[in-house]
C-alpha cells in the first residue's frame, strides 16, 4: 500500500518535472543558418519511400510474370518436336487423317 503510494507520488513528480521549464536558447549561428538555407534552395527531391517500394514490387512482379510466360512458352515449344518421332502424330497434326 505504502509502496503504491510512493510509486504514484514519484510518477506525479516525473510528470510535473517540466514545470517552470525555461525555453531553450538558439545557438549563436542560428540566424546565419537560416540565411544560408534561404540562399541555397533545397536540393533535388528524391522519390518518396513508399513510391520506391511500390516500384520495386512492380518490377519483381513483372520479372516473375515474364519468367512464367517464358517458361510456359518454352514448355509448349518442346512438347511439339516429340511428335516428329511418331508418324501418326504428324498426320493428326496435319489433319490429313480421314475417317473411313
Amino acid at each position, binding site marked *: 500500500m505504502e509502496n503504491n503510494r510512493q*510509486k504514484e507520488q*514519484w*510518477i506525479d*513528480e*516525473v*510528470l510535473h*518535472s*517540466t514545470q*517552470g*521549464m*525555461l*525555453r*531553450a*536558447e*538558439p*545557438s549563436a549561428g*542560428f540566424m546565419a*543558418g*537560416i540565411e544560408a*538555407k*534561404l540562399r541555397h534552395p533545397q536540393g533535388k527531391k528524391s522519390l518518396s*519511400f513508399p513510391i520506391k517500394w511500390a516500384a520495386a514490387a512492380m518490377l519483381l512482379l513483372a520479372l516473375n510474370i515474364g519468367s512464367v510466360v517464358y517458361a510456359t512458352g518454352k514448355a509448349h515449344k518442346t512438347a511439339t518436336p516429340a511428335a516428329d518421332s511418331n508418324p501418326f502424330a504428324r498426320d493428326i497434326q496435319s489433319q490429313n487423317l480421314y475417317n473411313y
Partner: protein
Amino acid sequence: MVQDHGLAEDIAQEVFVTVFRSVLSFNERSSISTWIYRITVNKCLDHLRAKTRQKRSGFLSMLFNKDEQPLHDQPVFDHPGIQLERKEKARYLFEAIETLPDNQKTVFILAHIEELPHKDIADIMNMSVKAVESLLQRAKANLRKKLATVYTKENE
C-alpha cells in the same frame, strides 16, 4: 519532439525558411502562431517518420550483413531549460514520451510542455477538441504505465 538540440535548431531554421517563402499563401483562417506551430509539428513528424524508416532499413541491412555495426540507441535527452533538481525526473519523462505514438506524443508535448489551450492544439493538429482530449488522456495513461514499470525496475 525530436529530443535533440542540434536537430531541433535545424528544424526551427527550416520552419523559418518555410514561413518566409509561404507567408503570402497564409489565408488567415487561423492565427499566425497556430500556422507556424502547424508547420513545425509537421516538419517534426516528417523527421520522426524518416527516422523510423531509417531504423527499419538499418535493421534489414544488419540481418543480411553481419559486419554492420548495430544502430546506436538515442542518447538520453537533457533539456537545457529544466532546473537542476528536476533534470533526472525529466529524463525519465522524456524517455517515456519517446515511447508514445506520434499523435499522442504531439498532443502531450503541446498541452503539457508548451502549455497550449486544447482549442489551439485542435487547430494545429486539424482535429476536434474532443479528439485532442481523448489523445491526451491516452497519452497520460500510457506514460503512467511506462513510468510505473521504470519505478519498479529502479527499486528492485
